[in-house]
């Protein structure tokens, strides 16, 4: 579906006309990312991250499939195989650094994409399905990245796998058998490494499938925009191509510059040195940390140090960690304000910039710090605010806040008031 003024695909060349009749893929592309897809004319650079995330997925699949040609998931040689990729395979160092930093970049991009959604309440109707699918993608990404990090079979790989599968042992009754079943043993070993490799290979393609659903759902209402006012007329939109192919292309160029600065000059900056030590089941590294993109959630996990409402601390931590993401599923119903954009919501905006963002930053910092005071205490306060923000503050704000006046239309927001704007009251 699209707006009635969307341009129709009209192939000129007989071959393209033939193809359009038999297998209309060019038509699909034209209507999805071509001249046939009208998009709000006022999208900011915050709307670049969706396309960038798609690019990251392709990058991970291409580099990953190639790495898999040289890798071997046998716990006796997996570590050596990773070093073989680094030292012996032609350009192997580049491919591995591209894949490892690609994962980090994927998360940077997706976090910005999600926070764009928070600020502009992109999760609100009619886009709830897009948001829900997005949270599913994020969960799948976390699983994929976690299993990928186990593959080089370094110390952090091993202990990360042990601690994260240990989370499942917190579940009452079935927990321990479940952990043993997931690992295929009592600790991570050959069985676990092999199944993680198999799933790490598979999941990105599952993600690709959910991404297709995500974009399909997006194309029904079309993109939101920085005003949050829905498209009303043709003058509110421009065709995706050439306008946003150009804008996204420019953004991709800038992102690639930053990405390659890491790949070439700081390839191990985001990694942990202990992962260059081969996995040793008998010795835990002094300070276990997951990859940086899990830190906020790891901080929440660790902030439950005492039993709470007679639920064991361990289970509480696990529940809270999963709840921290699952609460996103309920956002469309927690934030009831009819106004979308944070630009017109004075109270919401304050809590976003001075509440949610600093809280995430603090959780991020504490998740990477050792499990000592004062970090544990700070993380506990931040965890409390995190849940308060979504479950209490947002619903209250959305009922007491007086939004600022909205522009009548996107065109008015961009070009100033016109006659049409005077005729009808603001939305």
């Amino acid at each position, binding site marked *: 579906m699209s707006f009635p003024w969307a341009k129709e695909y009209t192939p000129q060349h007989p071959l393209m006309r033939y193809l359009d009749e038999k297998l209309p893929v060019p038509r699909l592309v034209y209507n999805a990312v071509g001249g046939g897809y009208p998009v709000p004319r006022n999208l900011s650079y915050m709307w670049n991250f969706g396309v960038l995330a798609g690019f990251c997925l392709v990058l991970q699949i291409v580099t990953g499939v190639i790495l898999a040609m040289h890798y071997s998931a046998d716990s006796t040689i997996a570590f050596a195989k990773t070093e073989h990729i680094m030292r012996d395979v032609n350009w192997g160092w580049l491919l591995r650094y591209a894949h490892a930093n690609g994962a980090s970049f994927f998360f940077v991009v997706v976090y910005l994409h999600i926070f764009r959604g928070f600020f502009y309440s992109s999760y609100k109707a009619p886009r709830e399905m897009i948001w829900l699918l997005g949270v599913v993608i994020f969960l799948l990404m976390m699983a994929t990245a976690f299993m990928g990090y186990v593959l080089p079979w370094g110390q952090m790989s091993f202990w990360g796998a042990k*601690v*994260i599968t240990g989370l499942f042992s917190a579940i009452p009754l079935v927990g321990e058998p479940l952990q043993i*079943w997931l690992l*295929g043993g*009592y600790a991570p*070993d050959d069985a676990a490494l092999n199944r993680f490799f198999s799933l790490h290979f598979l999941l990105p393609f599952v993600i690709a499938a959910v991404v297709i659903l995500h974009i399909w759902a997006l194309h029904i209402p079309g993109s939101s925009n920085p005003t949050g006012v829905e498209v009303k007329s043709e003058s509110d939109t421009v065709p995706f191509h050439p306008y946003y192919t150009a804008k996204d292309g420019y953004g991709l160029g800038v992102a690639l510059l930053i990405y390659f600065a890491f790949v070439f000059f700081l390839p191990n900056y985001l990694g942990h040195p202990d992962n260059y030590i081969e996995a040793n089941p008998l010795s835990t590294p002094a*300070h276990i940390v997951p990859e940086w993109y899990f830190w906020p959630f790891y901080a929440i996990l660790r902030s439950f*140090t005492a039993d709470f409402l007679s639920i064991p601390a361990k289970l509480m931590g696990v529940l809270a960690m999963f709840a921290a993401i699952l609460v996103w599923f309920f956002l469309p119903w927690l934030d009831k304000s009819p106004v979308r954009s944070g630009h017109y919501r004075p109270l919401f905006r304050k809590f976003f910039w001075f509440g949610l963002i600093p809280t995430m930053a603090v959780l991020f910092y504490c998740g990477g710090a050792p499990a000592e005071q004062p970090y*544990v205490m700070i993380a506990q306060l931040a965890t409390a605010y995190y849940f308060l923000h979504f479950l209490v503050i947002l619903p209250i704000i959305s009922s007491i806040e007086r939004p600022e006046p909205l522009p009548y239309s996107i065109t008015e927001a961009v070009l100033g008031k016109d006659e049409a704007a005077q005729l009808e009251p603001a939305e």
Partner: protein
Amino acid sequence: MTETTVTANSVEGAEGTDGVRRRDFINVAAVSAAGAGAAVVLLPLISQMAPSADVLAESSTEVDVSGIEVGQAIKAVFRKQPLFVRRLTPKEIEEANAVDINSLRDPQTLAERTKEGHLDMLITMGVCTHLGCVPLGAGEGENKGPFGGYFCPCHGSAYDTAARIRQGPAPKNLEVPPYEFTSDTVVKVG
């Protein structure tokens, strides 16, 4: 070959006097059979993930404890996981026995956690019951934590001299694996 005639009636399925069509019976029977079949297929698909025979076969270990000095501990391997074998000092035994059992998160006496006549031989898994890190305290000079037993650096669980959980997020005492003394100096674990 038997003769079959397709009538409009047989396409709809003959209706009995009770209003149930014969075709309904075939539907329910076919779907149930397929459902039962699918459930049976799940069994191998799920069970293949469990520990394989060779992993299970590795599950017993012999440890010679004669070389362990009083106050010293060694790390052995059981089921590919660390095993702590520790000879307690009289002071450590005293400390363990002085604790009020009811104040413990996982109440157990030292005697319950050791074999009769070997109160000083504390054999436990070296696996923190929180999320599975190897606690410190078995190696020479390692931090034994505030209760003088073991200390897990991952999230700060502290165990006492009977390896019982005293502080931090771990829910249980360090696990005592099944073992027996096959002679005065040899322990068979598993």
